[in-house]
């Protein structure tokens, strides 16, 4: 039975049910309700909660808990996630799993409180120093967010990688009907530090970083091959294929269904993994399609780089144009997406690539 819940609270409860037993973080709008909820909830389930002195400390506490084999969580937004990047890179370097939630808000520097998709490049390209990636999940509803929490931990432990739950301010702040998943039973990971040295870890000065880099690439190739997730509709015969994730992905689904009803041959790819990018979806696209169109909550267009890369890689014989419809400070309504689609169709919008 679905119950109306605020996004951040449903997500926090879903994390607990997915086995998260340690949370450390620092308040920031629009993600704070996650830590508020966990500040009392963790204790009820025998977990630990620390209100950290900074996002920097928060991610480093997550490192400590994860190193000891416990499912650990932190959540933040915009500048807070920037502060966590060194720690995320370190988790990657140590092969430690963790889930990091970001409820994205718009802006550079301090930014704003508006819901947004301006951090796509940071999340999908690693974000911190070095040569690594995180798995990035980008749900489009509170229910999908909740349903992805347990898979997020499973992926992070399977590949010993950080999983970023890339939400949006909207997903944290809105209420939607939610059916909560059952509790997952977890045990400490085999590589946990227990104080007994039963997992023989070699010292940093004995590591062969170049060899490790090659192994890391093999891991990332396996993730790219096995873990692409997406939703698609109407792309096999489409003249234009939209690419959009998150809440704009939902709005775009509404738009393509209305456009179809009006006789327009349009389809949608909605990535559920932003990394690995759902390249395989592009093989299903009508080879005669006239363009791909990203719908993004940002000003400069970020998703369009990936959409263009993979449409041109998959359909090499034709230079299919890639367009970006960018909307700042807003989730675009269906009518705006439809109106802008017709501008593209009428040649009024220049392609990006």
């Amino acid at each position, binding site marked *: 039975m679905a119950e109306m819940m605020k996004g951040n609270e449903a997500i926090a409860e879903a994390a607990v049910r997915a086995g998260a037993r340690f949370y450390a973080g620092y308040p920031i709008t629009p993600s704070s309700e996650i830590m508020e909820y966990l500040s009392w909830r963790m204790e009820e389930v025998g977990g630990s909660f620390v209100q950290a002195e900074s996002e*920097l*400390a928060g991610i480093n506490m997550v490192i*400590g808990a994860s190193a000891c084999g416990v499912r650990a969580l932190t959540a933040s937004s915009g500048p807070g996630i920037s502060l966590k990047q060194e*720690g995320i890179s370190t988790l990657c370097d140590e092969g430690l799993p963790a889930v990091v939630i970001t409820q994205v808000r718009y802006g550079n520097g301090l930014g704003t409180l508006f819901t947004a998709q301006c951090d796509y490049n940071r999340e999908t390209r690693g974000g911190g120093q070095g040569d690594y990636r995180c798995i990035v999940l980008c749900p489009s509803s509170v229910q999908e967010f909740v349903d992805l929490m347990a898979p997020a931990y499973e992926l992070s432990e399977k590949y010993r990688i950080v999983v970023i739950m890339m939400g949006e301010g909207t997903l944290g702040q809105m209420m939607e009907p939610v059916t909560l998943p059952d509790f997952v039973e977890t045990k400490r990971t085999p590589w946990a530090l*227990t*104080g007994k040295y039963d997992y023989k870890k070699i010292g940093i000065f004995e590591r062969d970083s170049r060899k490790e880099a090659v192994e890391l690439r093999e891991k990332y190739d396996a993730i790219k091959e096995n873990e692409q997730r997406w939703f698609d509709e109407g792309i096999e015969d489409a003249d234009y294929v939209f690419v959009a994730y998150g809440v704009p992905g939902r709005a775009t689904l509404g738009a393509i269904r209305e456009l179809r009803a009006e006789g327009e041959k349009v389809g949608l790819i909605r990535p559920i993994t932003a990394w690995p990018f759902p390249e395989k979806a592009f093989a299903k696209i009508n080879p005669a399609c006239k363009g791909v169109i990203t719908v993004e909550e940002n000003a400069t267009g970020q998703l369009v780089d990936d959409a263009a890369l993979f449409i041109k890689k998959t359909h090499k014989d034709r230079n299919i144009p890639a367009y970006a419809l960018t909307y700042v400070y807003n989730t675009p309504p269906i009518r705006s997406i439809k109106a802008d689609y017709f501008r593209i169709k009428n040649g009024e919008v220049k392609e990006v690539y």
Partner: protein
Amino acid sequence: MAATRERKVPALVDKPMDFCPGCGHGIVSRLIMEALEELDQLNNIIFPIGVGCSSNLGAGLECDRLHCCHGRAGAVATGMKRVSPDTLVVSYQGDGDAYNIGIAETFNAAYRNENITVIVINNTNFGMTGGQMSLTTMEGQKTSTSVHGRDCSVTGYPIRFPEIVAREFPGAAYAARGTVTTPANINKLKGYIKNALQAQLNHEGYSIVEVLSPCPINWGLSPVKAMERIEQELIPYYPIGEFKKRGEEQK
């Protein structure tokens, strides 16, 4: 002729550590291991390790350890201890790591009274990167970033962190400073370290032991002269002793 005793190396130490001649780190590492052995905790220890010369500790140990981001051992130790309350968690850091870049994490772990032990090797400079000025550099001390001698009017005065813990954090279990200059001081320091570990074992709260330690290479002194500098210059400013004893009420 006196009977010679076989030198016994604590079981957790499996390799030589690459410290410079005359460095104090090796003595402190050994004291920690001996203390763990005497407390029967060799099988119940995790070291979150700092960045700098302190990193060399991790290279020589045969036990659970994690190299932390520079300065963040206080936070990493917090995460470890919260999920492993019955395992000893001992951070091992230098003054640059614990005080300069890591003051927020060091301070806040003490402020929350995390049940961890913090060992800080204070050699009054950044040893590994070539002897730059740190928060513990003495007034007038020449370093590679204070070539005319530290000017405290624009760089601040050397910090005495264990004293801050003892004075400002009523819940903290133990705060002390020792040194490695003489056998007597080494024995005293071992006692401080054991006290700190015992406090953690008994869930008494936060414990910190700072160690005045020679850095002959970066100080430009011979090992013997470096020990003399500690006695003559450092101890008058950085007193050795226990500032907060176990079971002691806040004054």
